[in-house]
């Protein structure tokens, strides 16, 4: 299905859906409301004409000091094995309450991707079965892919015991 047909099909179910005209890699972007993300993705997966059965990727973006609706966004890259078409779904998330509903129930592949997004951006996923850090150590504080996180960290890499030689020099 072409991008314009996808848009029409989705607008027939969600009237007034926000589309971004950006055609990066020929993939259309549907900007979804944060509160409706589960409903939208369930429709995209279950509708036989759309059948987006494959969540290729899920990740966060920090738009700090960039012009965007909100500071954060979560982006879902969808692909339909049945029809061979793609779609990008974007949900903006305000800095004041960085949280969105989990889609791990719809796409099991979202489980670890949401954990990574939580780990690196601090975006909480409501209803996630096991929202723990996945890359950083469990006792890590902060979310290092936020643009205001210092590149050199806040001391983690220097906090180890120094082992010295047991033999005299």
């Amino acid at each position, binding site marked *: 299905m072409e991008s314009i047909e996808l848009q029409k099909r989705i607008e027939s179910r969600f009237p007034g859906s926000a589309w971004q005209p950006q055609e990066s890699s020929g993939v259309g972007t549907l900007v979804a409301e944060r509160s409706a993300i589960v409903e939208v993705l369930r429709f995209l997966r279950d509708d036989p004409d759309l059948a987006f059965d494959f969540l290729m990727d899920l990740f966060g973006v920090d738009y700090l000091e960039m012009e965007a609706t909100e500071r954060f966004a979560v982006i879902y890259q969808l692909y339909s094995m049945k029809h061979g078409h793609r779609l990008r779904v974007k949900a903006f998330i305000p800095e004041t309450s960085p949280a969105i509903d989990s889609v791990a129930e719809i796409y099991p592949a979202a489980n670890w991707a949401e954990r990574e997004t939580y780990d690196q951006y601090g975006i909480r996923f409501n209803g996630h079965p096991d929202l723990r850090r996945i890359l*950083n*150590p469990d006792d890590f504080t902060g979310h*290092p892919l936020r643009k205001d*996180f*210092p*590149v*050199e*960290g*806040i001391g*983690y*890499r*220097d906090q*180890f*015991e*120094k*082992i*010295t*030689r*047991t*033999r*005299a*020099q």
Partner: protein
Amino acid sequence: MGLESSLRDSVFTTRLDAFINWGRKNSLWPMPFGTACCAIEFMCVLGPKFDMGRFGAEAMRFSPRQSDMMIVSGRVSIKMMPVLQKIYRQMAEPKWVISMGACASTGGVFDTYSTIQGIDRFIPVDVYVPGCPPRPETVIDAVIKLQKKIESERSRDYR
């Protein structure tokens, strides 16, 4: 020495340190601690083209208890550093460490929150190998340098 001249070639005398170090330096047992691309480059050091076995260091042991030369090849993250220290502590004395490549020695280009800026901040290092990754000849040169270092050690320094 008078004793040697009378006994001819049947015995020879030496210092105990020289004898022990001669044995140690010619049978190093490497423990590869490979975390990144340097470890891939390190593989061919053992291959037939470069053959670290010529210097008595071909018997790779993946147990720290059976090895005495750790080769840290690759960047070490904050999650890996406790593991590296634990493995280093498990190695029996005497033990030596080669820091292979820019990342293990200085953190390399990874000046980030999660990368250790040189393993020598937290464990003692004997030989640093420059390069990104180093050529196999450079690693062999490091082993030869380590052998020279071992030659000059005194066994009574070990407790």
